[in-house]
Every structure is written in C-alpha cells, then in structure tokens.
C-alpha cells in the first residue's frame, strides 16, 4: 500500500490551559481511509492540525512514515482559504512545481471547467470549497487530511465529490483522514471511523464492507444507528456540561 502511516502516542493539546485533546493513542496504517466524527468543538480540527504538523502537541509524540522519503502531507482547511488575488487556476496551482497540466483535469473533475480565470470573489461557497478540494488533491500527497471538505455542498454535488474522491483513491491509493459531520459519508467512504469526544477517541470502528458501498446497505444502516447514538450521547454530555 502506498501512502504514509501515522502514529500518535499519548498526544495531548491544550490552549491557554484548557485541554482539548488528552492521551490520544492512534495508529493509522498506510493507505487507510479514516473518518473522524464528533460533536462541534470536540477537537477534530485540532487533531488534524497536529497530524499536519501545523501545531505542536502539548504532550506526546506524532510520527509520520512514508516508504523511502519524507511524508508529503496536505491539509484542506475547514475554511476554504482561497487567495482572493489568484484566479481559480492560480489557486489550484499554489505550490505546484511539476504536473501543471493536471490542473485542468482536476478542475473538470470538481465541475469548475470554464471558470479557471475567475477570481474567488465571484464564486459561491460550494464552488470555493471545490477549488480548495482541487488544490489539495492536485499535490497527490502521501497523507491527505480533509477537514469537512463537503460541508457547503448540496446533496447531489456532495455525492459527486464523494465519488470523485473514491475514484482518485482507486487510481492513486494513499492515506486519508476525513473529518465530517455526516455519519453516512464516513461509512460510505472509509475503512475506519473514529468518534472523537471528551478529548479522546471514544469509538474506533473498523469497517471493511466491500466497495462500492450503497446507502441502503443494512450493515451500513446498523453502524450508522450506533454511531449516531454515540454522537447523541456526546451532544447530551455537552449539554449537561453547559
């Protein structure tokens, strides 16, 4: 399997004395597709930023390993972070050294063909998000971190983007960590689903259903119920704290 493997050893993160993550142990194998779900504010984005190396953990150790070279990581941020002074194409090509020819193909794939020369100011929220997705995908990193990449999309575009992501991964397998609020999305796409709450990983489900998967699959439905239950208790706990 190609891609980077990730290992976290009793990782913790605090901001100004407030602990967000505590004692997280996690091993992600190369090529695994992991989804992270959890209530808002649970620390999902924080976890991704730690893995991406954008923030240092307050405690513990994080290691990325790729075969033969330094692991190349790309994080698609929760906000689109498009550069307003660059066109759609210019944004996608940010930091791209070779492979400039791929940009057209990827923009086609995310449904933005013909808009390459527009500035982000004229794009809708969903279009901006797709530009950011294209920008993360074009690098073909060993480890792809996606923070709610489809949050601003309508159901149809969302399904199309999920399919696109699956196809890209079949063509070029790599490790992916996807943060999502959509349990069904997590189950459709991933080999493993993590539920983050109370500063740690509350559930860790391996899910090796054959692909392509269907929303109507009974196994998927059962797991969805279970995970939603987990989320609901988490929300209830939050409410109790507040």
């Amino acid at each position, binding site marked *: 399997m190609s891609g980077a493997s990730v290992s976290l050893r009793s990782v913790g993160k605090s901001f100004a004395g407030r602990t967000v993550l505590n004692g997280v142990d996690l091993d992600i194998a190369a090529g695994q597709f992991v989804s992270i779900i959890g209530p808002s504010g649970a620390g999902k984005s924080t976890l991704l930023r730690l893995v*991406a190396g*954008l923030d240092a953990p307050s405690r513990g150790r994080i290691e990325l390993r790729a075969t033969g070279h330094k692991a190349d*990581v*790309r*994080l698609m*941020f929760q*906000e689109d*972070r498009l*550069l*307003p*002074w*660059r*066109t759609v194409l210019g944004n996608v090509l*940010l*930091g791209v*050294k070779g492979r400039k020819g791929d940009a057209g193909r990827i923009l086609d794939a995310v449904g933005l063909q013909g808009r390459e*020369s*527009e*500035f*982000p*100011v*004229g794009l809708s929220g969903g279009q901006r998000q797709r530009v950011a997705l294209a*920008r993360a995908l074009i*690098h073909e990193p060993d480890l792809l971190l996606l923070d709610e990449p489809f949050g601003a999309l309508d159901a149809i575009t969302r399904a199309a983007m999920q399919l696109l992501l699956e196809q890209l991964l079949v063509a070029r397998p790599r490790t992916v960590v996807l943060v999502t609020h959509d349990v069904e999305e997590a189950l459709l796409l991933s080999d493993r689903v993590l539920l983050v709450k109370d500063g740690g990983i509350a559930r860790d489900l391996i899910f090796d259903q054959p692909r392509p998967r269907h929303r109507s699959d009974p196994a998927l439905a059962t797991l969805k119920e279970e995970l939603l239950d987990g989320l609901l208790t988490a929300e209830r706990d939050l409410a109790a704290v507040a």
Partner: protein
Amino acid sequence: MTVVADVSRLSKAAGLHQRGLAWRSVVLPWFLPLGLLLVWQFLSATGIVSTAIVPAPSDIWDAARQLAKRGELQHDILVSLRRVAIGFSIGALSGLLFGLAVGLFELLHDLFDRSLQMIRTIPHLALVPLMILWFGIGEEPRLILVAMGSLFPVYINTVGGIRNVDPKLIELGRSYGLGRAELVWSIILPAALQPILVGMRYALGVAWLTLVVGETIASRDGVGYLVQNARELLRIDIIVLAIILYAIAGWLSDLVTRLIERRLLRWHPSYADRVKA
C-alpha cells in the same frame, strides 16, 4: 401567470434602475460645481459681489488665456508637475523599499522602525527654513521636501500592510510548500497591496500640499511662483486661477491613482465587477 408578469416587470425596473445609476454617477456630480460657477458669474456680473474681492469666473478665464498666450501658464504648470513627479517618485519609492525591508525582515524592523517612527512625527514643513538656509532657493529643497512628505505615508502603510497579512493565508502557503521568496511574492505582497496603494494615494496628496508651500515661499517658477508674483501685483484673478489649478491637479492625480488601484485590485471584493481576469 401573475407571478411571471411580476418577474418581467421587476427585471425591466432593474434595467431602468441600472441606466439611471449610470446617468447619476456620470452627470450628477457635475451639477453642484457648474451650478456654483453660474451663480458666481451671476453675482459678479450684477455687482452683488465686488470683483475687487472675488473676480468673476470670466475674469479668471481671461487671465488664464493671457498667461497661456505668453507661454507662462504652460511653463509654470509643467515645472510644478515635474517637481511633484520627481519628488513623489523618490519619496514613494524610498518609502516602499524601506517599508518592504522593515516589514519583511524582523531584524531591520527592530533596527529602524522606532527611529523612522520618531522622524515621522516631525512635520516636514517645519524644515522649510532649514532647507532654504542649506540649499538656497534652488530646486533641491523643494524636491527634498516633497520626497519627505511622500515617504512616510507609503512607508507606514507598507509596513502595516505586510505585518497585518492574515496569518491563516501565510500558514496555508507554508503548508502547501511555498518557500520564503514564493511566500512573499504570492501571498504577502498581494495581501499588502491595498494598504500600500492607499498610502501612495495619500502621499500624492501630501506631495501637492508640500509643493504649494515650497513654491510659495521660495521659487522662481511654478504655480506657486505665479501666486507669489500675483500677490505682489494684486492680481486676485491669477491667485484664484492658481488655486483652481491646484485643485484640478489634485483631482486628476487622485483619479489616476484610483484607476491604477481599480486595475491592480480587480480581484478585491470592493473593486471586483465579477469579471474575468
């Protein structure tokens, strides 16, 4: 059916509204100045306002034509334009270079910024007597003054613009593999462009103001000299003419910088017409 009819009527109204807006933004701003000019001419012609205090617009026009016939007007305008152009270019360019250096390099910031901020608090026009003592009434003191006046607005806005770049975008650049030089070129400079241009526009205003003072105090030509001379000859019409010339010059330079801004910042939400690059 009613809904459809409503929609079409709405869009027609929108079209009218658009045309109305174009008409309004082009023609309407001229109403007040032209109206004032007419009233002014009327008041002077009927003798309600003595032309010994304020000359009539037609008198000023005549004065301009006389001066133009002798070639004086063109000469003085060109001399003044040249001074602003040279002084502003030197000042704005140095301000930009200093600003870039201090904004981009922490070491230079710690070394220079405090001193430059202190120099900035000296009103540059207070240096006029010193300049005249040092340089006489040659060309240098005026150019130096104009340059000094233009330097600081550009400097401060450049430093501020660079230091206030959204850290999220810098983080994005870093994590997408940009090197230091690429980061500056692709993210920091474009993000700082708007404040830099604002500084330039402001500096241009200061440049004109400085020139007026510089030329009025010590000069042998230029629009300021025109005023100086006219005051000695009690030619109020020429004085008012010079004031109008300064006003036009200021307005024109503002217009040009606005056009440049609009072009360079066409991606910016406040300028974008949602057009293609």
